């Protein structure tokens, strides 16, 4: 049912854990629905994401999408990271079953929520930059 790439990221997830004293944290999903992703980021000079870690409660696709999302944004600038869409996540995993597409959406939302939190902590309104504040109910369906 899953591609080799998904299974690789499931069995050897990259960047698992939580950054201590992070610059931004985003958590999306809902335990009732069986998916929760939490991404924490460290942001260095030039607004570059120098480190990123994730924790995920969820199915194989949820683990794999969060893992690859951390790879896709690590070392990137925030504006590049904001360009990582759920499509990009699916492509990087060489495909996901149709019923698992929502996991890629969650991964995109988790990244955005972490970046929104980064701006909020700095006292900058994230909405014009990220498109949302990463805290509304739509990320918690």
């Amino acid at each position, binding site marked *: 049912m899953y591609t080799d790439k998904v*299974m690789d990221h499931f069995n050897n997830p990259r960047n698992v854990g939580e950054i201590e004293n992070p610059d931004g944290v985003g958590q999306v999903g809902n335990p009732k*629905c*069986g998916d929760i992703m*939490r991404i924490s980021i460290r942001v260095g000079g030039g607004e570059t994401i120098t480190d990123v870690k994730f924790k*995920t409660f969820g*199915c*194989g696709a949820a683990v794999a999408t969060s893992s690859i999302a951390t790879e896709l944004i690590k070392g990137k600038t925030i504006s590049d990271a904001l360009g990582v869409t759920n499509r990009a996540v699916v492509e990087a995993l060489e495909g996901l079953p149709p019923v698992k597409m929502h996991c890629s959406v969650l991964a995109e939302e988790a990244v955005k929520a972490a970046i929104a939190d980064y701006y909020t902590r700095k006292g900058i309104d994230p909405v014009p930059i990220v498109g949302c504040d990463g805290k509304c109910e739509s990320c918690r369906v």
Partner: protein
Amino acid sequence: MKVYADHAATSPLRREALDAMMPYLTERYGNPSSIYSLASAARRAVESARADIAGALGASESEIYFTGSGTESDNLAIRGALEARAGTGRHVVTSAIEHHAVLHTLQALEKRGAAEVSYLPVDEYGLVAPDALRDAIRPDTALVTIMTANNEIGVIQPIDELGAIARERGVPFHTDAVQAAGHIPLDARAMNVDMLSVSAHKFGGPKGAGALYLRKGVRLAPLIYGGGHERGLRSGTENVAGIAGMAAALKQAVTHMAEETARVSEAAGIVKAGLGAIPFARLTGHPEKRLPGIVSFVFEAVEGESMVLALDFGGICASSGSACSSGSLEPSHVLLAVGLPHEIAHGSLRLSFGPENTPEQARYVVQAVTDAVASRREMSPLWRDNKPAY
């Protein structure tokens, strides 16, 4: 190590079943309905299988009808009974934890106005209360359908008692015994049932063969019309090899039930004890009234599908009633019916053992599940300071 621990999904084909099937897949290919001798051999195989299955279920030969699956047997029983009683009532009583073969059939009938269904709740162990059935039966009740044993949590219902209530009220009673047949003793008469579904591949027979016990005198309308096979109730040339394999497998399962149950119980017992020692884990279903081979647990802060994938990596075949296996966001209706909250019901794991599983395999499974739960929790945002954080 490789461990097949998903016998409730399907079971390995028994040697005796394959041997019984081979002649009908090779030289004895005749159509049982033809009149020459090649065909008579096939007819004899079908009828002798009918006798064997009747014997194993406490029925007489004329009460066994062959179908293509347990699902088809359930459909025939439910839709056939309602159609045969059209005009006298369309109310059906069932339980909240039926297999989808029953639930989705009833839901489809409800949708088109062909049935009105009462879903009996179950207690925390998955048991239906006989009094609840007594209260639910109405003058227009046309059918009661309650499963013998549940496929996810293994709980065994008091079918004889429930069947007696329906009979007292003159309502036909069907039981989906797909998960129970060949695993616990079944006697259709003693169970007070009018219809009982079985499926060959759950007890070491081939896939694509099922049977329905239909008590003499109980009326059903067919779902499939054609050449009038199975006394007009299920047309279509008989799956001779499948039928022969099903009968051989059931005979074998029933003959060796005591020793096989002992082996299965040993493996299941080791796993039950081992998994019970994991913190924030709980057995689902009834502690005693359960199928010997099914070990079902929920692990808090862990999602089921990811556990199944992790176990597969370790060579273990298992399953989960998690939402992710079905593609919806809803966890198993069975686990919700026994009162588990959504977030915990997502963490379900079902291991189901068969007679070929060894104690050594069982110990390997305990270690693998323990490791899988620990590694899942380590990456779970719902697990903090060694406990769930919802």
